[in-house]
């Protein structure tokens, strides 16, 4: 069986060689420098024909290296176990390239982000509007270019253009909608959302006619900060602060990217500890999400129960790392603390109790009629749409896509453990609940296996500096889906380019689609059902955001 996989991979490389020179940048990642002319054909081949999926696009200002800009489109081939990155050179004079959004709608945001930050135009992009930069950001200033200093404060524009950004329509379209239907704003501050984000719902009575999403309100400029003034081993602590719930998965992905780029072999015990903490974090995250979901359904008892169970997980984390959340455990090449033998029994006992209690509670809850009624056949995302929008993680698995980084691109210690990937075909909110329920049980199973087989090795790899101009891809299965980190190494102990892409970035794009035609009362649970992590999505730039003036206008129109 193993030989068939190898021959399959050979075939793949031969196939790709026809489009350009294939370089294996490290284990499991291929880079092809392709001509723009083949881009559509190749994207279609990778995304649709080879049953892979598009992950994200990365724009890099490579002028100090080779005098041009670079755009990287990353694809995942689960069947082959490869990440395939298409590299396109964009000349400084023309500053434009072909968009792949017409072929893969999921590429919409990533390409607009590159347009905002590097000023590279994408030809044939269906909505070439601003996505991340605010209305009053001056034209012609692109913050991720290397000649833009990280501590520069751009002076904002006085006059604000009438361009709708972040929404999926033109101004005229929105005006027509808001004249006919009631606009119900969900956000930027709303009890159902726990982070500032904005959903514009056009409502006829209780039915949602159309939905718009506008995000990126709390950008923090992490990429720029990391590239400009942090060293390799400082970034894990910044990366962990991308998200308060799934921070560890981010810094693991970052460390893996750098380790892959530099060819560092991490000792096994460190890998086991990473996996252990990743699974703890997954249980924590899912329990937290269950609580939020129950609260949105008005079932506060379930909310309190799951959050009490979550307390046990935080106690374990405290015992292992000294922190209840934001573990601060990763460094490049290993982890910072060991797991003590005397704690293992305690952890197992707590997890056993948790599993029993959790099972009992959830079985009771899933037999509650009105809760099932509120979630069944609500917010359906079909398998085709899920493929089209490249959704990830439990959200994709609830729509029948069998994808899991842990299984198909094993990292950390996942190749040593045996586990199941729960998949459901219904694609509704209930399916997402059930997938996460099963995942928690699987995670407990994984942790037990890891604790039984902890190898005895050092915790840190010995390595001698990190070579420059190397590419690295680090991927983890975050609680919300595939977390993708891309690194180009630089000199002076700094990264040249670091691009984290959190799973919610892809998942959020599916929300407006799921909201259409549903009841207003179901909107919060539909939005929450993807477990949106807005802080993960917003990590890009520091601006004093003055929120959408135009939106306030349209609201005023309704208020008369």
């Amino acid at each position, binding site marked *: 069986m193993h030989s068939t996989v190898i021959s399959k991979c050979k075939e793949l490389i031969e196939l790709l060689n026809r489009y350009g020179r294939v370089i294996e940048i490290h284990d499991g990642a291929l880079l092809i420098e392709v001509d723009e002319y083949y881009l559509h054909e190749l994207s279609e081949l990778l995304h649709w024909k080879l049953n892979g999926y598009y992950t994200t696009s990365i724009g890099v200002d490579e002028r100090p290296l080779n005098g041009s800009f670079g755009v990287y489109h990353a694809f995942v081939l689960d069947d082959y176990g490869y990440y395939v990155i298409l590299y396109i050179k964009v000349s400084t004079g023309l500053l434009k390239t072909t968009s792949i959004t017409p072929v893969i709608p999921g590429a919409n945001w990533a390409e607009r982000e590159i347009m905002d930050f590097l000023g590279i135009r994408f030809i044939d992009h269906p909505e070439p509007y601003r996505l991340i930069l605010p209305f009053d950001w001056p034209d012609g200033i692109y913050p991720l270019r290397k000649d833009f200093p990280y501590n520069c404060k751009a002076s904002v524009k006085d006059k604000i253009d009438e361009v709708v950004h972040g929404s999926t329509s033109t101004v005229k379209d929105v005006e027509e909608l808001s004249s006919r239907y*009631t*606009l*119900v*704003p969900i956000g930027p501050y*709303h*009890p*159902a959302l726990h982070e500032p984000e904005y959903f514009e719902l056009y*409502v006829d*009575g*209780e039915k949602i006619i159309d939905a718009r999403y506008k995000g990126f309100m709390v950008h923090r400029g992490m990429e720029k900060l990391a590239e400009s003034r942090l060293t390799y081993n400082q970034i894990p602590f910044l990366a962990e602060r991308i998200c308060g719930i799934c921070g560890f998965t981010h810094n693991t992905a970052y460390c893996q990217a750098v380790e892959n780029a530099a060819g560092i072999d991490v000792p096994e015990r460190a890998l086991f500890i990473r996996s252990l903490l990743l699974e703890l974090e997954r249980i924590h995250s899912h329990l937290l999400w269950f609580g939020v979901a*129950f*609260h*949105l*359904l*008005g*079932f*506060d*008892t*379930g*909310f*309190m*129960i799951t959050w*009490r169970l979550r307390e046990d997980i935080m106690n374990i984390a405290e015992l292992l790392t000294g922190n209840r959340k934001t573990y601060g455990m990763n460094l490049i090449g290993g982890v910072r603390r060991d797991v003590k033998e005397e704690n293992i029994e305690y952890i197992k006992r707590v997890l056993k109790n948790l599993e029993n209690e959790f099972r009992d509670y959830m079985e009771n809850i899933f037999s*509650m009629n*009105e*809760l099932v*009624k*509120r979630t069944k056949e609500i917010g359906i995302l079909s398998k085709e749409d899920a493929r089209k929008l490249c959704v990830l993680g439990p959200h994709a698995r609830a729509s029948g896509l069998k994808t899991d980084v842990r299984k198909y691109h094993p990292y950390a210690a996942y190749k040593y453990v045996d586990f199941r990937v729960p998949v459901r075909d219904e694609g509704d909110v209930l399916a997402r609940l059930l997938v996460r329920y099963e995942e928690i049980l699987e995670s407990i199973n994984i942790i037990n296996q890891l604790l039984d087989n902890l190898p005895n090795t050092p915790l840190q790899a010995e390595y001698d500096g990190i070579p420059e101009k190397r590419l690295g891809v680090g991927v983890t299965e975050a609680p919300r889906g595939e977390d993708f980190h891309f690194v180009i190494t630089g000199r002076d102990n700094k990264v040249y380019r670091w691009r984290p892409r959190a799973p919610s970035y892809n998942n959020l794009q599916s929300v407006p689609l799921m909201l259409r035609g549903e*009841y*207003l*009362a*179901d*909107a*919060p649970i539909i939005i929450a059902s993807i477990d949106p992590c807005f802080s993960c999505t917003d990590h890009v730039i520091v601006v004093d955001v003055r929120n959408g003036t135009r939106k306030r206008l349209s*609201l005023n129109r*309704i*208020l*008369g």
Partner: protein
Amino acid sequence: MIRIIFALINVLIALIIAPLFDGIERKIKARLQNRRGPPILQTIYDLGKLYRKENIFLGSRLHFITPIIVFSNIFIALLIIPTFIPVSIYFIGDIILLLYLLSSSSLFLVLGSISSRNPFAITGSNREIMLSIGSKLLLALSIGVIVWNKGSLLITRLFPLVPPLVPSSILSFIVFIIIAYIESMRLPFDIPEAEPEIAGGILIEYSGPNLALILHSIYLKRILFASLIINFLFYGSILFPGYLGILIYSIIFLALLFIVSIVFTVIEVFCGRYRIDHALKFIKNLSLLMGVIILLALYGY
């Protein structure tokens, strides 16, 4: 004259007891959910703080004035029914006035809320109207059947429910209990405010004393319905002569109110929120049952 004074004392006790009961309910809920919960007096503190705050005028007089109308409706309704002391201000047809006061309080709440023109308030009002059309009709019908069996429009003559022991009275009393639950804005029927969905809905634009008035009238309404339930069951049967007798009656009444409130709270803890169409379907099914009960009553059962 003494009757009026006693009735006023009744309402004054209810004004304090209602938020206190809400505080106790919050505590019970918290204990059932593995929480410590706020102090029992928390709701009273909250109301006290809200009453002392500045009243904000949003530009709509209707919006500004309706909380007082809503509150006074409930206040007057409480004068009509006997509570802690078994006296009330009664006259022929007071049951009709009671129904009128209850429905007009909902109506004015919605009117005030809509006039704020907030989209969440509009959605909340929409839901409140849909819900209360169903529940108010059922309320009128269920009391109507009891009136028919008792043969009197005087509210104190309706208590207690038996005699006469007829199935239609018992059944409509059960419907009445369910309606009492729906009317007291508890889960799964708190759809008009639904905090996680529409951010407080009908209450969203109210603050300070106006919000306090509306909240207070919701708590009073709970006491009102619970008192009606207790009166239907026990009115007059536990009254001893003399002032001491009245005192004992008051204490027993309070204990019974407490039991009703605990039962309702426990139900609430194990519920999620209905969507408006699910709630309407529930009321529709209840109406079908009510139709059967009316037929029963007409044929003398």
